[in-house]
């Protein structure tokens, strides 16, 4: 369908953008890469008389290496992250996760900030970012603030963004010394589909024993889930018994619901399969 006429407002700064959002209230919405939002407006499922174009603000699309991690601007495209040498070198799992979204054209257009702000429960980047303990910077009427990504997702399509606030960047700390991470995306139907679920895992070992294990999952709750309580595995070999205990904890913290890609029963089965596979992949030294 066609999009109903609207005005594209093009602020030159974050402050100006935030002011416009406050001024127009429910009549306005920020537009970043503009894939999901444009599609919804084309389907006439949503309508905003004003869209606040974040692309007109300079400096929001950079990917920078800092002393303790990498900062990715909200307007960086998925493709830029996927192909970024600094990301691929120091945290390849992030490049992997962004590289698994949709198809190459979507990745060429859609933005990191747009993806996270949309807060769809199945998105690929959040599990990888959660497993790496990412933090998001937000700018709004009251100025800037930063919050851990795990506190950013509040519900289905709901984030911690207050009226007038804009996601500015994602800061991802470097991975712990000697650790490895993986993101497994399981698409049950065609190879190109939204995931049934996604599992991100990070493992650091000392002398064959677990020093730190982190897990985050997508598609199995209303928001992406960072698994808590994995500290018990520190110092242990990741034996079958330990992995079973991990799976028990995971099972207790997810709340999958049936969708087009799998019933609740199936998702629970697949969580077990793919968490095990992720851990096995990291534990085996490949």
């Amino acid at each position: 369908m066609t999009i109903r006429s609207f005005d594209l407002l093009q602020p030159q700064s974050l402050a100006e953008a935030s002011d416009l959002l406050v001024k127009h209230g429910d009549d306005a919405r920020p537009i970043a890469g503009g894939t999901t939002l444009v599609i919804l407006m084309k389907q006439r499922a949503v309508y905003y008389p004003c869209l606040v174009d974040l692309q007109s603000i300079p400096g929001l699309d950079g990917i920078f290496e800092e002393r303790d991690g990498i900062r990715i601007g909200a307007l960086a495209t998925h493709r830029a992250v996927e192909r970024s040498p600094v990301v691929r070198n120091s945290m390849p799992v992030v490049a992997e996760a962004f590289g698994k979204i949709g198809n190459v054209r979507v990745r060429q257009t859609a933005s990191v900030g747009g993806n996270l702000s949309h807060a769809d429960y199945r998105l690929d980047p959040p599990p990888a970012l959660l497993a790496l303990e990412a933090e998001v910077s937000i700018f709004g009427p009251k100025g800037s603030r930063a919050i851990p990504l795990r506190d950013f997702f509040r519900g289905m399509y709901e984030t911690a963004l207050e009226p007038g606030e804009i996601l500015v960047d994602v800061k991802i700390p470097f991975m712990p010394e000697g650790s490895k991470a993986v993101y497994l995306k399981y698409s049950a139907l065609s190879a190109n589909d939204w995931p049934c679920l996604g599992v991100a895992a990070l493992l650091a070992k000392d002398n064959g024993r677990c020093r730190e294990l982190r897990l985050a999952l997508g598609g199995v709750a209303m928001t992406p889930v960072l698994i808590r309580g994995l500290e018990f595995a520190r110092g242990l070999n990741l034996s079958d018994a330990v992995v079973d205990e991990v799976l028990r904890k995971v099972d207790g913290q997810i709340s999958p619901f049936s969708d087009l890609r799998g019933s609740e029963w199936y998702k629970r089965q697949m969580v077990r399969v793919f968490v095990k596979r992720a851990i096995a992949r990291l534990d085996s030294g490949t």
Partner: protein
Amino acid sequence: MADFAVIGQSVYRKDANSKVTGQVLHVGNIEMPAMLHVAVLRSPYAHARIRRIEKSKAEALNSVAIVLTGAEVAQMPGVDPYFGPAFRDQPILAVDKVCFVGDPVIAVAAKDRRTAEDALQLVEVDYEPLPAILDLLEAVKPESPLVHEQHRPAKAFADLAHVKAGQKSNICYQFKLRRGDVDKAFAAADRVFEDTFSSPPAQHLPMEPHVTLVYLDENQRINVWTASQTPSYVRTELSNTFGIPMNRIRVRIPYLGGGYGAKLYAKLEPLVTALALITKKPVRYALTREEEFLTITKHKVITKIKTAVKNGVITARKCEVFWDTGAYAEIGPRVVHKSGYTSAGPYRIPNVWIDSYCVYTNHVPAGAFRGFGVPQVIWAYDSQMDIVARAIGADPVEFRLRHALNEGEAFATGTPVKSFGIKEAIRQASKAIEWSKPRIAPAGSKRRGKGIAAGVKAVLTPSISGAIVMMSADGTVNVLSSTVEMGQGSETMMGQIVAEELGVSFDQVHVVQPDTDITPYDTITAGSRSTYHMGNAVRAAAGKIKAELFQVVAKKLEVNPDDLVAQRGRIFVRGTEERGMTISEAFLAKFGSLGTTLTGEAICQPEAIPTDPETGQSEKCTEYWFPSATTAEVEVDTDTGQVKILQFYSVGDTGTAINPKHCEQQLLGSAITHLGLTLFEEMIFDEGQLVNGSLLDYQVASIKDLPDSFRSIVVEVPHETGPFGAKGVGETGALTVSAAIANAIQDAIGVRIHELPITPEKVLRALTQKKEKAALERSNENDA
């Protein structure tokens, strides 16, 4: 094919250059001055009365030309507000009630699409919901509420002449076949197998959505440009619907961006014609993809199949086949009939009972989908063939060969089969996959298996194809045919046949795009019928020109016309090339003037003997058959249920391959598309609402979903009356895919899936149930 110049050559397709440069004409590219664009408001209810329509705000919007309702269409003088190829049951716009979610209610024509869609949002419609008939097996019960109170046969086609105005029922058409005595055979059987199989509604998904443009020319004739597979039918339907003489309607069709059966009969044409007639402006309507989902589908089918075995052979088969044709029958009755009578398979079975029901429900209308219903029935019968074979310890390939009909044996309809390469197809398919080679058991959670399926489709008979061929004095040729080029290569096929017949080069033949002002009647471009029917027609038409030229040359050279041949642009005495004339010389000899033309016309109209309404028997139910076999090797991940296809072979008997590479492409293309249909395609409804009505959610096979290795194999069993022995190939590859995959999965992990699509979850559930059952049995044994 050493005797032929161009038949049997894999020439490059005629339309390749225009298509690869994007210069090709599609209806969506055609613009006209003051052209209006259309948006349609569709019903949000599966079944409801229309109580009130408030449209004044929409009408008042700037640049809106008209806001049209069904009641207004019904009041247009001389206009039948209902159309359809089997029953005139589909309203141009809903009149007093809506029958499915998506049923068109209001049409706006405006200066541009955005204005039209803005106007739609200003229209208010009040509905009174009615009970929706959504369950297929409930809908057939006598006590079920009705989708339609009356059924009005359309009388458009000879093969549907027997379709009657029905009794009060949602069953609008029933095909019956009775052969022998199934009850007696079941009673006497060693074993009886009973299974139910189901196949979901699905989307044809041509990448080019439906689009139609209608305008009145300077003579006030109705001119239609439309993306349709049926130019002749569109003209007839518009003539009948609007009461306008046929020659005051012109239908033109350029290349289609895919059809697969979605673009048959009338779709947008009646509505766009009504809008053009009222506004007196050109009107163009192009569907969005979401609207495509709400326009036409592949039939959902539930098949109950019961088979008796005695002494290792099948003695009886009973099939009850239920087809969900949706809110409007479209061509459902033809599908139910033609596929219905093949429901027992290409096998020797003395006692057969088939009931095939075309059922109305409050869902999106279903119509012909590549395969014309046969994939759904083969899904049932050739899945069960494997169940039976394995249960009695027979090898699946050998079991099928044991039962497959030989040339001249009677099909379940009583028709002796001719040009029926089913056994050769089975042999080639099993050879390609090295059927007898021991299975490898990989380590870990993966299991491998091989499967085969065989089946056959019958071509629509009777049907009609007429053609005119016109040759000019320089030896170049125009072919006037209403066959539609939709990617299947029909234009190239016609070019090859005519070039061969007239002895000119392929490049000298131009095939004119369908234009009902000049191209004669053709039933439809569908059902794999064009190579045979239109191929014969163009060949015969060309043959008449050749005969005239032979007369001229024979007279000039004082030889017998029977001694002449036409090759390489010359007409000469067989064996003595120098004793002849060029085509140009022959024209000059006949006419004495430059630039003259000769024309030939022919009609190919095979007859069938209608099947008996009570027994389904006929000595000739079809002109020819499409035997098909597929073999596949799968690897099942028993942790997830995912099925990977390692090897895949699609084998089809096409008769003589006019263009061998194109035949391979058609076999493989339809097969790969059906892999997607087997593994993940389905339209999912919730209380009549389509839940996955866009490509974000409805999954389609991409380049990542290809099997590891795959090939198509053309088997050529020539047909004695096909053009150069050819039959057809457009659908053959689609027919046996699903059953082959399910059979391979059974081989790999010993579970049987009865419902398409075969998703990983279904496989895992079946495996889990199997394990639980085995564990229960083990614990019972331990207890005992």
